[in-house]
């Protein structure tokens, strides 16, 4: 059948198989993509009657002038830069260590991966408690080193750091799994050859492991960047439905949520979504361009 040319009959049949998926994705994935772009130009919109009274680009001029949106972009970038590189490095180190041991390796993998399966909202409550300035576990540990209590969640200076620490903790496991797959795929012979050539452990790492692992590193970084650009649940849960003290954890998706859900400004919210889309696209393209030069497939 696969070698056969498509016919009207086979097309009709395929359409029947595709139909349930097509109906749902067209209504809830494809149409809304186009609709978001269109909605970002609604400047006067009656949601209840679904009537657009005015069109224009003023939503974009609004957000580009809105100090809150500037803050949201800035915070999102800080979050991405704070989370992604550290997550990549830590998970690579853990994966390298796990790859070298046999005893208890399974147990370690289970433990490191555990945060991935847990509800962000639920575990954020736990972190909220850990970060408690008076009775929290973290300040207690810091006090053992003579560090004064820090108002992790109340001080605008530390709120983003608290968010970043929790997010790194949550995302390590997923990346460790991917790195382990990558390490597993490296043929033992490369190391044997390197050994014969007299390469020490560090040279083996920089000249064999890292280059051969680069596709996975690339995948992990892209995933991490895209995921971090869309951060929302953690913020909502950690700061009890606020974007942090003095908006110190206001991100683009949080901005979108506020404009849409609490202020009912659909056009502005849609415009911020469009900006998010282009930012993610741009960063992904840059990463792809970079990987062409530096990733060895």
């Amino acid at each position: 059948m696969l070698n056969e040319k498509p016919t009207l009959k086979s097309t009709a049949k395929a359409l029947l198989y595709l139909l349930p998926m097509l109906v749902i994705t067209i209504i809830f994935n494809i149409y809304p993509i186009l609709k978001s772009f269109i909605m970002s130009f609604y400047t006067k919109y009656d949601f209840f009657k679904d009537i657009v009274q005015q069109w224009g680009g003023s939503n974009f001029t609004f957000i580009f002038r809105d100090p809150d949106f500037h803050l949201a972009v800035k915070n999102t970038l800080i979050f991405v830069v704070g989370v992604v590189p550290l997550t990549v490095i830590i998970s690579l180190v853990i994966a390298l260590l796990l790859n070298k041991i046999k005893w208890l390796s399974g147990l370690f993998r289970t433990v490191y991966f555990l945060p991935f399966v847990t509800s962000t909202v639920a575990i954020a409550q736990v972190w909220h408690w850990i970060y408690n300035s008076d009775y929290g576990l973290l300040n207690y540990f810091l006090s053992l080193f003579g560090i004064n209590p820090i108002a992790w969640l109340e001080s605008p200076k530390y709120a983003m750091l608290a968010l970043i620490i929790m997010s790194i903790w949550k995302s390590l496991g997923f990346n460790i799994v991917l790195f382990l797959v990558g390490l597993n795929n490296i043929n033992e012979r490369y190391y044997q050859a390197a050994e014969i050539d007299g390469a020490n452990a560090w040279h083996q790492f920089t000249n064999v492991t890292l280059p051969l692992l680069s596709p996975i590193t690339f995948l992990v970084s892209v995933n991490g960047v895209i995921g971090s650009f869309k951060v929302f649940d953690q913020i909502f849960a950690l700061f009890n439905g606020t974007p942090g003290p003095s908006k110190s954890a206001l991100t683009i998706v949080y901005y979108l949520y506020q404009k849409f859900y609490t202020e009912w400004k659909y056009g502005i919210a849609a415009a911020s979504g469009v900006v998010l889309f282009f930012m993610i696209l741009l960063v992904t393209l840059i990463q792809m361009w970079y990987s062409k030069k530096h990733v060895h497939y």
Partner: protein
Amino acid sequence: MKVKVAMVLRYVILVLGAIIMLMPFLWMVSTSLKTQPETVKIPPIWIPKQLQWANYIEAFKAAPFARYFVNSVLVTTVTTAGQLFTSILAAFAFSRLNFYGKNIIFVIFLGTMMVPGEMLIIPNFVTLSKFHMINTYWALIVPWLASFFTVFTLKQNFQSVPDQLYYAAKIDGATDWHFLWHVLVPISKSTITAVTVLQVIGSWNAFMWPLIVTNTENLRTLPVGLQAFTTDAGTNYALLMAASTFVILPMVILYIFLQKYIIAGISKTGLKG
């Protein structure tokens, strides 16, 4: 000697790391079993004098968690089953049938995977309001009944099944439908389990969408209900930790039993999020 030191060092780092990873969970369970005065003791106590199991009962009764639980189970089950059904059918068409527009359709869908889901929330909310589905179970379920990510994963797997099997089934007089459900699906059991478990975890933990499309207590899922409960619980951390524990626990149990499939699923696809 040097080799031994390196080995010990590896274990030391891994154990330290594991302690950090486990700490929040241990702290959660520990706090959930304390009396309120015990929760604010400095230095903190890890094992309460008397385990306050009653906290769990109290937390469970303090908010309609039973209802949230039922909602979460219902939404997760229906979403996952529905998504699996639509995806298996579509993956079959993409992997075994030839039809006009196949490549174009496939590329368009691949492209949609690039779009951040958060962007779609606004138009989807408007669409569902038109269908009068906001604040109903439909809103929680219907938009998630198809996932191109799942289609893509299953398609890859279906393609790895040798064509000969398909021709053999055809010669034996099997219809496509029969071949799909009696040959292809059973053969792909492990991949199907993997995508199912990943989907279950995703649905169970979903927060933003259920938060936006529900506004009555009766329809809240566990994460949304837990978030609402934080306001009621206030500083009663023992109760809050008990409630968090029973939101987290079902997925932890699922994970421990199906770990193999989850890890395999991520390794194979690596692209969810």
